[in-house]
């Protein structure tokens, strides 16, 4: 290893990169688009952040009707259509075979309410029920996923011991038979999952659930309710990297607010930037992200 190469990844460069990320928190107004015009890495990515304080009931469980409404408004804003069903028809074709990649982690999961809201709109776009499957750890064995022409990726964001955060990018780790094989260097290269033949160019929509994200990790299971907060939000878009970048910034802001000092993630979620710079699957550059904010604004953190 040459001196030059070693020095290129030291804290000095990290400080520079972090400064850029902070500068980038002021964002432009979004421009609606359509998936079918955004193949490959887009020049500019639109991300919709929608929040509704009524999404959680008194016990903290999601309300189905509010979840559906949030998803619909996000898709309308994202596609520029005046109706969610019309919007979904620009995302999914009737002949598609659709795998909805969810996340079933015991403590904070995608939620059945989000899964069902997605399924309802996929069926509304003309896809028959037998051509839709919702799965997480069984995707490699699932007949629908095996022949899927379209994927929808939905999961919650939370801090993670090994990769910094559990992200949309990371949610495709179940598309390889040995997920731990990609743990090197804090899962730096999770982005390469998106170039697997089973996945490449199939993802039509990404939903990062931020109803109750976790911003800090303690304990062997990576879960501590003390560090879970009600954010009432959902990030929706076509570009998983841009969405993860925004979700990550919300997590970081919450950490700084809670701890009262600058508290970078432990470890850093480097896989999000590398998904852009190494694997070219999306934008982690704030100058290339249009953020559309809808709904509840208090403590929005971004």
């Amino acid at each position: 290893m040459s001196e030059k190469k070693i020095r290129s990844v030291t804290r000095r460069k990290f400080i520079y990169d972090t400064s850029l990320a902070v500068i980038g928190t002021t964002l432009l107004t979004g421009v609606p688009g359509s998936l079918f015009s955004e193949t490959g890495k887009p020049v500019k990515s639109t991300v919709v952040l929608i929040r509704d304080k009524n999404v959680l009931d008194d016990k903290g469980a999601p309300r189905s009707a509010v979840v559906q409404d949030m998803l619909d408004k996000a898709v309308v804003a994202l596609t520029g259509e005046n109706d969610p069903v019309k919007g979904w028809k620009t995302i999914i074709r009737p002949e598609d075979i659709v795998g909805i990649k969810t996340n079933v982690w015991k403590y904070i999961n995608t939620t059945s309410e989000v899964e069902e809201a997605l399924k309802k709109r996929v069926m509304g776009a003309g896809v028959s029920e037998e051509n839709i499957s919702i799965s997480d750890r069984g995707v490699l064995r699932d007949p629908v996923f095996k022949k899927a022409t379209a994927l929808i990726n939905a999961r919650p964001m939370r801090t993670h011991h090994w990769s910094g955060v559990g992200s949309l990018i990371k949610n495709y780790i179940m598309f390889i038979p040995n997920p731990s094989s990609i743990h090197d260097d804090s899962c730096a290269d999770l982005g390469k999952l998106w170039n697997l033949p089973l996945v490449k160019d199939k993802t039509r929509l990404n939903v990062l659930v931020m109803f109750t994200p976790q911003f800090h990790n303690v304990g062997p299971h990576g879960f501590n309710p003390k560090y879970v907060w009600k954010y009432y939000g959902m990030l929706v878009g076509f570009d998983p990297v841009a969405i993860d970048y925004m979700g990550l910034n919300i997590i970081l802001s919450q950490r700084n607010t809670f701890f009262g000092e600058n508290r970078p993630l432990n470890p850093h979620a480097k896989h999000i930037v590398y998904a852009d710079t190494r694997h070219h699957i999306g934008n982690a550059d704030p100058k290339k992200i249009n953020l559309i904010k809808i709904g509840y604004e208090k403590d929005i953190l971004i």
Partner: protein
Amino acid sequence: MILLWFNIMAENDLRSLKTITGSLPKSISGWKKSLTEGYYSPDNLFEYINGNAELFISYDFRNLITLTYNKDESTEITVDIFDMGNPANAYGVFSHSRENEDKFISDEIESEYGGGLLTFWKGKFYISILVYPETEGRKEIVKIISKMISNLIPGDNTKPSILSLLPAENLSPFSIRYFHHHIWLNSHFYISGENILNLGKDTEAVLAKYYPEKENKTSTIFLLINYFDTKKAEIAVKSFLKNYLTDSENGFSRLSDGNWAGIEQNGKMLTIILNAPDRDYAATLLKKVKYE
């Protein structure tokens, strides 16, 4: 022969762990103990805590026994007892992520409780007890179980001796992290993607934060490493100067963010100051280390 010896030791370790879990009551205030226990070794720990297993293995994890207490179908208390081989590594795992310490179990036990999760260490064991969602009643059961486990583990809590070298003034007590693997250094304070300080299982390191001014929220990082070998410490100094403090004068350098860093070797020990507000403070902190 060596392999056989290791196998016998591992079996003895697991037996002592089973003695602890086997002594826990079958029922506590209506909470029923699971009929079966889960046993995990370094070879299959990832099956239980995928993504987190690497942390424990880097601290020389030996065995885990996990069991539950259930009151109804939807609520359970998960009890995990990790045999970390020695007290230093049990403390190391605990120190890795705790933000606070409380007296949840007793004055003698370092623990952290919040939101339904209790973590603590005693002897060579690191223990996690999780109930979710939390209620006051469930919290009491967690306390009862933790006291029982604590009483079943013989001996006291002896921390790694290297911690005694940390200067006391302005030290943030819950910021102390004890580790071996370089990735944990980076997770607490990022230095380099490469292991430029040659950290590993044969070294021990302690990192702590100092706040020179109470109103100042920026911490100075204190890193102390024992290489157990003077030659290895010398090699690490050269590597750090070559790859990190490239433009240092007498072991001090000002980085691009305006903060100062400094390094000093004392035999097999190496001390590094990072993120200091000025050179004087870095130098003062280095001088405060009372090497043995």
